[in-house]
C-alpha cells in the first residue's frame, strides 16, 4: 500500500504526504520536553504551515475538479485512512486551511499569555487538525468513524486541558458523551448501509441506499441527521456547544466553531444529497425546520448572554441554522426534482459555511485577545477598548458587520443567496403547497434572525469597544502582540475580500454544488456580478461595484462634512451630572426590550434585592440578577437526566447485598429458561 496511491493529479500526492509529515512533526514537537526552543510555538508554527498546505490542496481539488485520494494502513481488514477528496471535500479543506492557519498563528501569541492551557494537551492540537482533514476526505465507513471519534477525543482533550477545574471537566465530559452518543447513531446507519452494500466504502453506499426499502431509508436518514446534527450543534442537539466552546482556549474555540461543527454539515450534505439521493419531502422539511429553529433560538439565546464567548457559541448555532435552511431547501428540491432550485440553495449553504468559518474565527480570536488583554469576557465589565486596542476593535467590527449580514461583506452575500433559494422555492411549482408555505415562513424566520443578529452584534461591539471602560481591567487593557493581530487582520481582510469577490467565489462554489445536485445557476455576468435565475428571471447582486460606490459616497460625505471641521470635545449631556461609566447601557439592559418582546419563548426571570441603609428608606445596594430559561435544556435534557439517574438508582437496588436473593435471581432465570426455551 504505497503512502499515497493518488487517484489523479500528480501534484496532489506529494502534497498529501507533506501535510501528513507536517502534522506528525508538530505532534512530536509538542510532546518534546521543555527544551530551550519553545516546543509549543514550534508545533503551532508547523501546524500553520500544514494548514496552508491543506488550503492549497483544497484549492487545487476545487479548481481542477479532479478528486485526489490516498489509502494508508489496514486495521483488522478495515482501511485506517482512506481519503478521496472530491470537490465538496476540497471546499471543506479550504475552510479548514484558512481557519486553521489563522488559529495556529494566533495560538503562538495567545500561548505566551498563558491563556492556552497546559503544554501536555498542546499535542492534541495538530492531531485535531489531522482528524478534521481526514473526516472531510474519508471514503470508507471505518476510516470516517476513526477520524470522527479522533476529532471528538482530541477536541475534548483541548477543552479539558485548558483549565483542569470542575466545570471545565464537566463541559468536556458532556461534549464527549453527547458526541459519542451521536456516533452510535452513525455507526448503526453505516452498518445498515454497509451490510446492504457488502462493503464499507462510501462509493458502494450509493447503490445500497437506492436498493433499501423506503422505511429503512428513512431510518438511515434520521439516524444520520441525529449523528451529524449533534456534531453541528443544531437545536435540539446543541446543549454541549455553549458549554464546551467558551471553556476551550480561544484559538481552539475558533477552530471548533469555524471548522469542526462544519463536519456535521459536511456529513448531512454528503449523505443527504450525494449518497442517499432523492427522498420524501419530509426529509427536506425536517432539516428546514431544524434550521429555522436553530437560527432563531440560537440568536435569541445569544442576545441574552453577556459572556462574550458564550454569545459567540450561541451564534454558531444560529449560523448552523442558516446553513441548514439552505441544505433543507436543497434536499427538498432534490426530492421533488427541482435541480435548479437545489443548485441555488446548496450553493448558498456551502457559501455560508465558508463565510461563517471566516467571520466566526475572527470574532473568537478577537474575543481571545480581549480576554488576554482585559482579563475578563464579561461584556458588562468591558467597554472603551477601541482606543486601547484599535486592531482588535477593527477586526471585531468587521467580523460583527459580516456576521450580521450587512452588505458589502461576505455574510450578506451568502444570506442573500439563501433568501433567493427560499423565495425561489416559494415560487417553485414542483414543490407541494405545504412545502412552499413552510419555505415562505422560513423567509420570515431568516429575516427575524438577521435583525436579531444586528441587535446582538451592535450590543457586543458597542459594549466591548465603545464609550467608557466599566472595569479596571478594561481600563488598562493594552493591544495584543503582533502575531495575534496579524491572524485577526488577515481573517478580517478575507471577509472583506470574499464579500467583494462574491461573484467568482459563489460561481466556484456553484461548481461544487453542481457536482452534487447536477445543476447550478450562479453564473458570473459581465460586470463581475452574481446573477441568480429565480424561476427564470435573473435577480442580481453585484458586490464589487456596490462596495466601490458605498466607499466613494461615504468618503465624499465625510470629506465635505466632517473632516475639515475641528470638533470641540466636551462632556456628554447627562442632565447636568458628571458622566460616569455607570450611566452607560450594559449588555443586560441593552437586550432588555428584546427579552420582553420574546418573553413567551425566553420566559425571563429576574430577582431584584434592595438593601436599605438601616433605618432609612434610602437603598444602600441594589442587586439585580436576571436569567433566561433555556427551554430545551429545562424541558428536555434536565427531566431526561433526572429520569435516567432515578432509574439507575432504582436498578441499583437489585444488588441489595443478600446472598439468598442473588441465588433466587439465578434460579428464577434458569427456570424461566427451562420453561421458555425448551
Amino acid at each position, binding site marked *: 500500500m504505497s503512502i499515497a496511491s493518488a487517484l489523479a493529479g500528480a501534484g496532489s500526492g506529494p502534497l498529501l504526504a507533506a501535510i501528513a509529515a507536517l502534522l506528525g512533526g508538530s505532534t512530536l514537537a509538542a510532546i518534546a520536553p521543555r527544551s530551550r526552543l519553545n516546543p509549543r510555538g514550534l508545533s503551532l508554527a508547523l501546524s500553520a504551515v500544514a494548514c496552508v498546505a491543506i488550503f492549497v490542496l483544497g484549492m487545487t481539488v476545487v479548481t481542477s475538479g479532479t478528486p485526489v485520494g490516498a489509502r494508508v494502513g489496514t486495521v483488522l481488514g478495515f482501511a485506517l485512512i482512506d481519503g478521496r477528496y472530491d470537490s465538496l471535500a476540497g471546499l471543506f479543506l479550504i475552510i479548514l486551511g484558512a481557519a486553521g492557519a489563522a488559529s495556529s498563528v494566533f495560538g503562538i501569541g495567545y500561548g505566551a499569555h498563558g491563556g492556552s492551557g497546559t503544554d501536555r494537551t498542546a499535542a492534541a492540537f495538530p492531531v485535531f487538525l489531522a482528524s478534521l482533514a481526514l473526516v472531510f476526505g474519508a471514503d470508507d465507513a471505518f476510516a470516517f468513524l476513526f477520524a470522527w471519534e479522533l476529532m471528538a477525543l482530541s477536541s475534548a482533550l483541548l477543552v479539558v486541558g485548558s483549565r483542569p477545574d470542575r466545570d471545565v471537566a464537566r463541559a468536556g465530559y458532556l461534549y464527549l458523551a453527547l458526541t459519542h452518543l451521536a456516533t452510535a447513531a452513525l455507526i448503526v446507519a453505516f452498518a445498515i448501509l454497509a451490510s446492504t452494500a457488502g462493503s464499507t466504502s462510501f462509493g458502494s453506499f450509493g447503490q445500497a441506499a437506492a436498493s433499501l426499502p423506503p422505511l429503512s431509508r428513512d431510518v438511515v436518514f434520521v439516524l444520520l441527521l441525529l449523528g451529524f446534527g449533534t456534531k453541528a450543534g443544531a437545536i435540539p442537539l446543541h446543549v454541549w456547544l455553549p458549554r464546551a466552546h467558551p471553556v476551550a482556549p480561544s484559538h481552539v474555540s475558533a477552530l471548533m466553531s469555524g471548522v469542526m461543527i462544519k463536519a456535521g454539515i459536511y456529513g448531512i450534505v454528503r449523505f443527504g444529497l450525494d449518497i442517499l439521493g432523492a427522498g420524501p419531502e419530509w426529509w427536506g422539511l425536517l432539516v428546514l425546520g431544524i434550521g429555522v429553529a436553530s437560527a432563531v433560538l440560537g440568536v435569541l439565546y445569544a442576545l441574552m448572554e453577556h459572556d462574550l464567548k458564550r454569545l459567540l457559541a450561541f451564534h454558531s448555532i444560529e449560523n448552523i441554522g442558516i446553513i441548514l435552511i439552505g441544505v433543507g431547501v436543497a434536499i427538498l428540491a432534490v426530492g421533488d426534482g427541482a435541480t435548479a432550485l437545489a443548485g441555488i440553495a446548496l450553493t448558498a449553504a456551502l457559501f455560508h459555511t465558508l463565510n461563517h468559518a471566516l467571520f466566526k474565527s475572527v470574532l473568537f480570536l478577537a474575543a481571545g485577545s480581549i480576554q488576554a488583554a482585559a482579563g475578563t469576557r464579561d461584556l458588562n465589565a468591558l467597554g472603551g477598548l477601541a482606543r486601547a486596542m484599535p486592531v482588535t476593535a477593527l477586526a471585531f467590527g468587521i467580523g460583527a458587520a459580516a456576521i450580521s449580514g450587512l452588505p458589502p461583506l461576505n455574510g450578506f452575500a451568502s444570506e442573500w443567496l439563501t433568501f433567493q433559494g427560499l423565495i425561489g422555492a416559494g415560487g417553485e411549482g414542483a414543490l407541494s403547497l405545504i412545502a412552499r408555505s413552510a419555505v415562505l415562513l422560513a423567509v420570515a424566520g431568516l429575516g427575524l434572525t438577521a435583525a436579531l443578529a444586528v441587535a446582538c452584534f451592535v450590543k457586543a461591539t458597542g459594549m466591548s469597544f465603545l464609550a467608557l471602560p466599566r472595569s479596571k481591567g478594561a481600563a488598562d487593557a493594552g493591544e495584543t502582540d503582533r502575531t495575534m493581530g496579524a491572524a485577526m487582520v488577515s481573517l478580517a481582510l478575507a471577509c472583506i475580500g470574499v464579500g467583494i469577490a462574491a461573484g467568482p467565489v459563489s460561481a466556484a462554489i456553484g461548481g461544487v454544488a453542481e457536482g452534487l445536485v447536477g445543476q447550478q445557476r450562479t453564473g458570473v455576468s459581465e460586470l463581475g456580478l452574481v446573477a441568480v435565475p429565480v424561476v427564470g428571471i435573473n435577480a442580481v447582486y453585484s458586490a464589487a461595484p456596490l462596495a466601490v460606490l458605498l466607499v466613494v459616497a461615504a468618503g465624499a460625505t465625510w470629506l465635505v462634512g466632517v473632516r475639515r471641521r475641528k470638533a470641540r470635545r466636551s462632556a456628554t449631556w447627562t442632565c447636568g451630572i458628571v458622566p460616569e461609566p455607570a450611566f452607560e447601557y450594559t449588555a443586560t439592559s441593552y437586550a432588555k426590550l428584546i427579552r420582553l418582546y420574546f418573553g413567551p419563548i425566553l420566559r425571563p426571570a429576574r430577582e431584584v434585592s434592595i438593601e436599605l441603609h438601616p433605618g432609612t428608606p434610602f437603598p444602600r445596594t441594589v442587586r439585580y440578577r436576571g436569567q433566561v430559561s433555556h427551554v430545551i435544556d429545562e424541558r428536555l435534557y434536565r427531566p431526561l437526566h433526572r429520569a435516567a439517574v432515578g432509574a439507575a438508582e432504582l436498578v441499583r437496588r437489585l444488588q441489595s447485598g443478600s446472598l*439468598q436473593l442473588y*441465588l*433466587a435471581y439465578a*434460579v428464577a432465570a434458569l427456570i424461566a429458561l427451562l420453561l421458555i426455551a425448551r
Partner: protein
Amino acid sequence: MTIDPGTARELVDACAAAIVLLGVGLAATRSIGRAIWLVAIQSSLTGVAALGVGLATGAGHLLIGGILAIGVKGFVVPLVLGSILRRSALRRERHPLLGPRVSLVAAVAIVFVASAAANGAVLGASVAASRALPAAIAQVLTGLLIVMTRRKALSLVVGLLVFENGIALTAFSLTYGMPLVVELGVLFDVLIAVVVAWVYARRMLDVLGTTSTDRLRSLRG
C-alpha cells in the same frame, strides 16, 4: 463379587427413597448439627447406590467412585463442618427465611415437581432410571431451597452439599456416572470447596464474631 441386576435395582430404589426422605428432613430441620449428620448419611447413601450398580454392571469406576464418595462426603466433610459448629455459639437456625412448616411443605412439593419433570424428560433408558432420577432432581431443588432460605453460613454449606449430592445422583442415574477422571475431579473440587468454606467460616468467627450471613450485606449497588 457380582450381584444380579434385580437386587441392584431394589438396592438403588431403596437408596433413592431414603435419600428423598433425608432431603425432606434436611429441609425441615432447624438444628445445624442434625443437618450435618443428615447430609453425611445422604452422601454415603449415594455412594452405596453407586457401589450397587457398579457391582451389577461390573463398571470399575463406579466402584471406586462409590467408595470415595462415602469416604469423602460421608466422613471427612462432617468432621470439618463439626469443628466449626463447636466453635460457633449458635447451634440452631433461629429464624430461617421460611418457617419449618412452610419449608416442609415446599420440600414435599419439590418431590412431586421432580418426579413430574423426570418422567416428562425424554431420557435414554438405563437400569437405574426408574427411581433415581426424580430423587436426584429433588435433591438439586432441595439444595437450592436450603441455600435460599437459611441464614447461617454452615447451613449454606449443607445446602451446597445437598445440591452436589443431587448432581452426583443425576450423573450416576443418567449415565452410570461420569468417566473416572471427571468423577475424581468433581469429588476433589467438592472437598476443596468445603475446606475453603471452613477457612472462611473460621475467619468469619474471628473477624465478624458470627457466621450469620445477615452481617454479610454491606456490599451494595
